[in-house]
């Protein structure tokens, strides 16, 4: 009897709580295939959401998808359960956002790395070519062999954008530099295959490469491990990964997905959120190269000065970095 009573009360309490929640501000985030612990792109998004939670005390809901149909399902379900703003992490979610945003015009949507042109969607994109350019410069400046490597994840336009910026940056410093490029694969598993990443890095080392940049999500962890094992240099991606192998990670092409998520949540909370396109580059501090206690010793003052100069030139528009365009 007592347990039944308790059960009834807890049901009642639950009911009240959910009613209170429904009236409140409820942010939500949907991660892509990589998962929120990829130490890279999705994790950066997750950190932004956590920071928002810490500062405001507002809890958020999250979901990691496992198949294509779940994107739409999860977003629609979050909207039905009272989510006020939904951040969709990754370009693969664009079509799902497009459909669900039409169904729920009162809910705010944010898509990262893609453009969805609807009155209740904010599209956040990054100029990855700018940070890749700086990393290419850093690589060419640090390379003793004059050969630098690139390991991409899945062979898609976004990753070719990284590769192009990197190559341009390397050639900017040293026109005769050789850039060795490899893509890990052609399926989404290419984002989560550290073993293959390490193999690719090793084969590049075998060809004389001594600095390797990865844009490969969790696969990149293998690339960085291989560089650390061989006593060579690697460059991290998306999150600041300098701490992973101090002394071996030259720098990281940081992409502040966390800032984008944090700002979206904050803006939606304060009422300053706006739909439309938002492009974040070096000027907006949306992308950058990292310099902290873990890699300070690897970047010489002369190199640092050149990097900072190039950064300033890109921001002022004096130095143009080309953007890879599909088709």
């Amino acid at each position: 009897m007592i347990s039944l009573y308790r059960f009834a009360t807890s049901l009642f309490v639950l009911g009240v709580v959910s009613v209170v929640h429904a009236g409140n501000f409820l942010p939500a985030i949907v991660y892509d295939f990589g998962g929120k612990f990829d130490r890279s792109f999705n994790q950066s998004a997750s950190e932004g959401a956590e920071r928002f939670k810490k500062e405001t005390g507002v809890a958020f809901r999250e979901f990691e998808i496992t198949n294509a149909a779940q994107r739409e399902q999860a977003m629609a379900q979050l909207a039905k359960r009272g989510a006020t703003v939904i951040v969709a992490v990754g370009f693969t979610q664009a079509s799902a956002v497009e459909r669900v945003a039409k169904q729920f015009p009162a809910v705010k949507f944010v898509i990262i790395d893609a453009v969805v042109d609807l009155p209740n969607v904010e599209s956040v994109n990054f100029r990855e070519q700018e940070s890749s350019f700086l990393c290419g410069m850093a690589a060419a400046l640090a390379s003793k062999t004059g050969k630098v490597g690139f390991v991409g994840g899945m062979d898609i336009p976004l990753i070719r954008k990284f590769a192009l910026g990197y190559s341009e940056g390397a050639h900017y410093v040293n026109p005769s530099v050789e850039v060795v490029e490899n893509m890990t694969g052609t399926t989404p598993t290419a984002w989560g295959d550290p073993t293959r990443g390490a193999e690719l890095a090793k084969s590049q080392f075998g060809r004389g490469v001594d600095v390797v940049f990865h844009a490969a999500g969790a696969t990149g962890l293998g690339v960085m491990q291989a560089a650390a094992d061989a006593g060579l240099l690697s460059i991290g991606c998306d999150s600041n990964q300098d701490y992973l192998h101090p002394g071996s990670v030259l720098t990281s092409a940081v992409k502040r997905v966390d800032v984008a998520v944090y700002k979206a949540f904050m803006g939606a909370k304060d009422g300053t959120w706006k739909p439309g396109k938002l492009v974040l580059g070096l000027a907006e501090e949306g992308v950058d190269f990292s310099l902290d206690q873990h890699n300070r010793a690897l970047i010489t003052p002369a190199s640092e000065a050149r990097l900072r100069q190039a950064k300033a030139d890109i921001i002022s528009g004096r130095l143009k970095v080309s953007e890879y365009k599909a088709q």
Partner: protein
Amino acid sequence: MSATAKLPRWAELGLLPLVNLLAALVLSGVIVKILGESPWAALKLMSAGAFGSQEAVGYTLYYTTNFIFTGLAVAVAYHAGLFNIGAEGQAYIGGLGTGLVCLWLGAWPFWAVFPLAVLAGALGGAAWAFIPAWLQARRGSHIVITTIMFNFLASALMTYLLVNVLIRPGQQSPESREFSAHAVMPAAHELLAKVGVTFTATPLNLAFLLALLAAAFVSVFIWRTRWGYALRVAGQSPDAAVYAGILPPRIIIGAMLLSGALAGCLGLNELMGSQHRILIDFPGGAGFVGIAVALMGRNRPLGVILAAVLFGALAQGGSQLSFDMPKVNRDMVVVIQGLVILFCGALENVFRAPLARVVAMFGNRGGEE
């Protein structure tokens, strides 16, 4: 102790799978408990998530449709003694056929697009199965190896096409433009609305009925036709087949063509029915789940349907579980699904002997009374 302890038919087909399923659920419950959640609440969430509402049922049957197609594909090959691991790649290329028809003939009326889309899907899947089949039949290259390799080839080909050829210009995501409204499968809620039944909007669509029809077709084909008979003979005893004048190479190629065609129909549900565009990696592992579905369904069409419903429920219920219980993340859901496969497929004989003894005991007592 033999692994082939005899069980009465009802126990073999009903009791044993149920006991296996129960064992898997108990072990999953222990894992959920270790994670700090209530196993009972998790089970309730999962079953409500899979069957508790119209939306739940719609999604469950939508996943089921994929698994019926791939499960049947594996089962047909299995009857011919072939282990088709390539349903994933065959589904991928079949979907390309379906997708191209939908893109090119978008201006045509649905009744004209529909049969061509089905045909293109089946042809695409069959074509992708043909090369490994031919290599097996004529060159003796092992079908398990070649079909696995063809999964990767399919993946590479599709990525090339989607990144370079079919991509909607000016976007990052490697996917084609959307199919026109004529070239999509009618959704279940639209069809039901026509007969006055309201049903929540879900991705469930006409392809589900096609999957059931395919199961009926396979049933008739395997057990009621000369072709099916030849296929089974060749599968069970190639020597006897040769003695009876059946040519194994022909059977191998024929069975694989049918198998590939069935897998190729996945695109009808996934692309034409739900996503309405060609996108990267749309089979999403359904080809591999099909192996588990066929094994669990004892390679019989009815069994395949039931197993496909179970896996559909696990996919949909599992996704709801991770949605509402953040501690049980998507990887734990995969663990639970894996346990079901482990107990129902690999360990199915663990309970067979004890069960046979129990059943025999009850049977004897029944005889004495």
